[in-house]
């Protein structure tokens, strides 16, 4: 579904992604972990071209990423993204946030789009907040609304860029539960996160990044039980201590 | 020559900006004939004199005796102050226009003001405050200026607000048209037509009765109005006869048709409460009319564009409101 070959990315003199190769099959759930500044968020953002690749190729569903323009907009419609800071549209109700994409991009008639949106809000558990504005919701509710917004486009792949990092601890689980159920239904997902519990429960594969490179990659049980590299061991010991 | 100091009001300096732009346009060849003729800069017309009153006229001009100036009078205050404060214009060709080279203000109104200053003080010391037609009455009532020399038409309505000495000049409105126009021969032919006028000039109030149904388009300065006529923004330009004559001399594209159709009696605007000063100024006017100074000033200014000699000066007190 997603195929990355020899990807490099520079921010000025800073070499943030170094020769990344990554293939994600349809229905696969890949969790990307690693210390801050390891380049995992940048990799995620490159996949729908919110960041442009410096070098290398990215293919989604067999098609190379188009340059700026309508073709890129079409591709992004197929690649959903959930942000760390939710980024719900502040001037629109939760329902209007969810229907905007389908009505404007997919040309779904408004009544149909509303019906589908309500079903999605029902599914993430905030149907009663449909007519509220984002600022009236808790962080967990906002993130679930953002997931509904991404799902409304019926994406082929969903990207999660640290979806729980901005949440109060008591709200983390309500979001993770939604993500786990999505994974169980066969959604192709690439998740950048620090939630090792989620990686254990839902991931097919864990990718460990450090200093712009993919250092290690494997099934979650193997990775957490017996990391092969020194850096992965070091990273795990730091975050699993408490 | 005296050094004239000017104080500009904000609105007036905006007007000057517009004039400067219009002059720049003319200088860029927009309205000119492109030949060797200088561009249309009114105030530098090409007939007879050079538009400047000779120094000898000033030297010979009368000065009031001490007996004419009682202690405590307005004249006394002006003499003690050392200069006359005049409300006027800087952009009226032949009447009151600042010479861009020398900086002095030239024209019939400006020279009359300087001669009045000489009569009171002994020297032609004038401080000119540029004022708009909107502010003349208020400036006189507040005594911000001693006198207004600004082709100020004497009317009964205005005479309820200010006093008029004079009339010191009579003129009339005439009709200017494009050179190739043969359909308009007098003001009567303007009925129902679009007519260009100068904003805040007597033409604004005179046209509705002289040319019924005519539509007015007003422009802020004389060069703009001429440009507008040449650019077909109206069928005719109605303005003071002498000003039109000066424009026609400088612009081959326009001509004056017919005789003046109104009589405008211009007065010197004064504070309404000060009957003593009005009588003093009227006496001065009679003196300079009688000794030929008035005629020399006319010839040096307006006479440079109008053929024939100086007319008979108007009779003091002859206008309704003077």
């Amino acid at each position: 579904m997603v195929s990355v070959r020899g990807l490099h990315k520079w921010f000025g003199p800073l070499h943030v992604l170094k020769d990344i190769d990554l293939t994600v099959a349809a229905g696969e759930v890949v969790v990307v972990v690693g210390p801050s500044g390891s380049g995992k968020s940048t990799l995620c953002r490159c996949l729908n071209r919110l960041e442009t690749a410096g070098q290398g190729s990215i293919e989604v569903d067999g098609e190379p990423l188009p340059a700026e323009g309508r073709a890129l907009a079409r591709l992004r419609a197929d690649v959903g993204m959930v942000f760390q800071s939710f980024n719900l549209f502040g001037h629109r109700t939760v329902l209007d946030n969810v229907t905007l994409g389908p009505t404007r991009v997919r040309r779904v008639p408004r009544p149909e789009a509303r019906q589908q949106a309500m079903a999605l809000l029902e599914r993430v558990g905030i149907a009663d907040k449909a007519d509220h504005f984002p600022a009236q919701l808790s962080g967990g509710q906002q993130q679930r609304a953002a997931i509904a917004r991404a799902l409304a486009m019926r994406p082929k792949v969903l990207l999660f860029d640290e979806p729980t990092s901005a949440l109060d601890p008591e709200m983390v689980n309500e979001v993770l539960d939604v993500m786990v159920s999505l994974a169980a239904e066969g959604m192709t997902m690439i998740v950048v996160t620090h939630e090792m519990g989620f990686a254990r429960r839902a991931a097919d594969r864990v990718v460990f990044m450090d200093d712009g490179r993919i250092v290690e990659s494997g099934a979650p049980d193997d990775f957490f039980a017996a990391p092969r590299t020194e850096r992965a061991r070091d990273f795990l010991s730091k975050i699993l201590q408490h | 020559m005296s050094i004239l100091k000017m104080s500009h009001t904000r609105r007036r300096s905006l007007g000057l900006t517009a004039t400067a732009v219009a002059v720049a346009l003319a200088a860029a060849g927009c309205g000119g004939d492109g030949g060797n003729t200088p561009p249309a800069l009114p105030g530098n017309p090409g007939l007879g004199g050079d538009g400047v009153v000779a120094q000898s006229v000033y030297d010979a001009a009368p000065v009031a005796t001490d007996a004419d100036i009682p202690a405590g009078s307005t004249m006394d205050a002006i003499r003690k102050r050392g200069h006359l404060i005049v409300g006027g214009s800087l952009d009226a060709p032949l009447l009151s226009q600042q010479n861009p080279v020398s900086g002095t203000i030239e024209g019939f109104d400006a020279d009359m003001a300087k001669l009045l200053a000489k009569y009171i003080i002994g020297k032609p010391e004038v401080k000119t405050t540029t004022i708009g037609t909107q502010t003349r009455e208020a400036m006189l009532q507040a005594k911000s200026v001693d006198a207004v020399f600004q082709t100020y038409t004497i009317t009964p309505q205005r005479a309820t607000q200010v006093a008029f000495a004079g009339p010191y000049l009579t003129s009339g409105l005439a009709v200017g048209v494009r050179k190739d126009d043969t359909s308009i021969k007098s003001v009567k032919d303007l009925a129902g037509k679009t007519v260009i006028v100068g904003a805040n000039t007597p033409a604004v109030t005179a046209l509705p009765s002289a040319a019924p149904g005519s539509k007015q388009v007003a422009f802020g300065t004389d060069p703009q109005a001429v440009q507008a006529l040449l650019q077909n923004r109206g069928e005719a330009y109605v303005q003071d006869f002498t000003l039109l004559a000066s424009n026609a001399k400088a612009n081959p594209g326009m001509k004056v048709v017919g005789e003046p159709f109104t009589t405008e009696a211009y007065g010197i605007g004064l504070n309404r409460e000060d009957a003593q000063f009005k009588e003093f100024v009227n006496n001065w006017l009679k003196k300079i009319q009688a000794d030929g100074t008035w005629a020399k000033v006319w010839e040096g200014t307006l006479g440079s564009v109008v053929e024939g000699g100086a007319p008979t000066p108007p009779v003091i007190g002859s206008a309704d409101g003077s």
Partner: protein
Amino acid sequence: MDALTAHLSQLGHGLVTTVELTVVTTVGAMLLGIVVATLRIAPVALLRAIGTAYVEVLQNLPLLALLVLFVFALPTIGISFPLFTSAAIVIAAYEGAYLAEAIRAGINTVGVGQAEAARAIGLTFGQSLRHVILPQGLRAVIQPIGNICIALLMNTSLAAAVGVVELTQAANNVNLVEAQPIAVFTGAGLAYMLLALIIGQVTGLLERRLAIVR
């Protein structure tokens, strides 16, 4: 007071012209302001340069000079509009530059995350602007936009310099007959003040109605 009441229809016509000029010009300036602000944040460098050049040129010339140039210089190259139209075009173009800057300031208050989220669901640049960025950006600067509209109202009086008989010119014409500047211009001033108050009220109403819940 007689000076005013005797010329009510003349002053009324001037007032109507002022209102017409203000409304037409405000609509034109808003559309232009949005277009120019969009150019200034466009992803293409050439478009950004055009937007910047527009703002710099128009903000750095006096409105009166623009009016006089437009009315007197364009006919020499064969382009001539009626005077009201000329004044409306020039004032809209001029105020459009100021509105563009206000709108751009509004756009800058919208977080970059909003634009990313809009793009991430497949909206094009134009759709992102229309449905996400501008609705939030404009709400943030309703008050400054209202102030520019009041300045625009006052600037319509400069149209008198190019032959449009609006309120100021009508007051001038009445004063020419009546010679009562204080009464006449106090009346005209009150009319301008009333119009400015109306704009202020509408601005306040819009700001309350359209406030984003935060």
